[in-house]
């Protein structure tokens, strides 16, 4: 079975992001970029399914600026077989990304698509669910465990207050949560090998999708800053302050 894994290029999770002084967005010039951490978990899960003999081919897809090919290379070094890059200078929002992925899925006919549960830049948490809708497939979001048997997939989901297990008919969408697995580091030989794996280059127009954003960002502000308060010398003083000054206990 073929697995499709969309991967997004985002500001590295260790970078302390800054709001641009003109309020037009987040400073990304000269900032380290990496694969979205939840997408790494998605690639890892696909590679494990291939190692178990469940999956036969893994196709990594990325969308956006030319440099997204580096993100695809990372997926290829982890164990994906080939890549598809949809190049666009227009900002791609989840709706457009899901529409583009739908066309790619129609062509590639994967049995399973694994995505990260959210990208750590726009924090939308939407693409997987939207792609499931466009394809008419069931969705197992926020997965911490997946098990494939025949034409069914059992997904254990992280929900408020615990876990929920659902059974979906394949083909299906899975989005990954933190505890699904711990992604591997690509080894040097695998990084070298990844350079020879093919990446197909496409444009949104090739897929017949209008990628125009529906949300216009009017401005981006810094969140209200908290002031550091005072240090207390002892537990007794802390409890006294909470009781008599803050009046919260």
């Amino acid at each position, binding site marked *: 079975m073929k697995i499709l894994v969309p991967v997004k290029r985002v500001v590295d999770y260790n970078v302390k992001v800054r709001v641009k002084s003109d309020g037009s967005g987040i400073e990304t010039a000269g900032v380290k970029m990496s694969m979205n951490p939840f997408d790494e978990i998605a690639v890892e899960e696909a590679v494990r399914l291939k190692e178990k003999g469940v999956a036969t081919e893994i196709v990594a897809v990325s969308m956006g600026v030319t440099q997204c090919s580096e993100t695809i290379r990372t997926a290829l070094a982890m164990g994906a077989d080939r890549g598809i890059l949809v190049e666009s200078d227009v900002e791609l929002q989840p709706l457009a990304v899901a529409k583009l992925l739908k066309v790619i899925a129609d062509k590639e006919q994967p049995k399973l698509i694994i995505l990260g549960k959210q990208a750590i830049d726009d924090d939308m948490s939407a693409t997987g669910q939207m792609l499931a809708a466009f394809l*008419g497939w069931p969705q197992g979001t926020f997965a911490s465990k997946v098990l494939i048997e025949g034409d069914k997939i059992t997904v254990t989901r992280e929900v408020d207050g615990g876990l929920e297990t659902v059974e979906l008919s394949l083909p299906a969408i899975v989005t990954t949560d933190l505890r699904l697995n711990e992604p591997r580091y690509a080894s040097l030989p695998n990084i070298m090998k990844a350079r020879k794996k093919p990446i197909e280059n496409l444009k949104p127009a090739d897929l017949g999708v209008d990628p125009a954003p529906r949300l216009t960002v009017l401005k981006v502000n810094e969140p209200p800053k908290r002031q550091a308060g005072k240090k207390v010398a002892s537990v007794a003083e802390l409890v006294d302050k909470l009781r008599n000054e803050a009046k919260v206990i």
Partner: protein
Amino acid sequence: MTSLVLLEHDANGIKQPSRSAVAAATKLGEVHVLIAGSNIAEAAAKAAKLPGVAKVIVADAPEYDHVMAEPISALIVALAPNYTHLLAATTAVGKNVMPRVAAFLDAQPISDIAEVVDADTFVRPIYAGNGMATVKSSDKVKVITVRAASFDPVPAEGGSAATEPAPAVDLPKNSKFISAELSKSERPELTAARVVISGGRGMQNGDNFKLIEPIADKLGAAVGASRAAVDAGFVPNDYQVGQTGKIVAPELYVAVGISGAIQHLAGMKDSKVIVAINKDEEAPIFQVADYGLVQDLFTALPELDKELGSS
């Protein structure tokens, strides 16, 4: 303009995050609510009492149990032509269902709004709350999830809305609920608690969370954790407070042995009063704490327990 809000309910009635979503919807005009599940007459009656709600649509059928995304999104899409805005709280359910609804309606979802500016314009956090983006939607119908911590919930009582049954809709049969394994706890839910006390990597292991429990009981607090503590396997993931876990804004947040990574701060910095207990006085958590105590948590927690018990 009329909004439809998807409600979540349990044995205690309409969940607090859903009541916050209703509060957000009241800023947009008339509010209808949808409540779904089987044998939900009691929950529907409670929904009708929410102040500001004009109509309750009741989808009483076993297919809607556990609010699975596939059937419930089909129902919401069928109801959508009557509404300008479709909302739910940013919970596991809201996040699962609403983007699916949005795709069927060719709309870009507006996730996790913290403010309603006008009918088309909303403020939402990006980059783990390190930026607040004001976004304007050009879609005909707005599909929204609401950050519960940013809107005071409407009270549980005070209204008297009409109820009507949901229309019959063809539902997909490609998903099935198997089981739920919910943490059993007498304590309040993290996102609804007035007080939250969280442990971090400094707790050293899961057993040491027992030091937090008696204090949580005395304060009526929910127990949370940092991602580091979850990653280290001390506690389950549903304890996690932060960008990739739960967003909380209690009246009192106590961070114990938590350094204060950006991703954790994103989940709790809207709390009214923040207390940090950490032996490292350079820990970034002290930069957001109203009250900081530089002390080893293994001496501080027993003292705190004793001090609270002596009142």
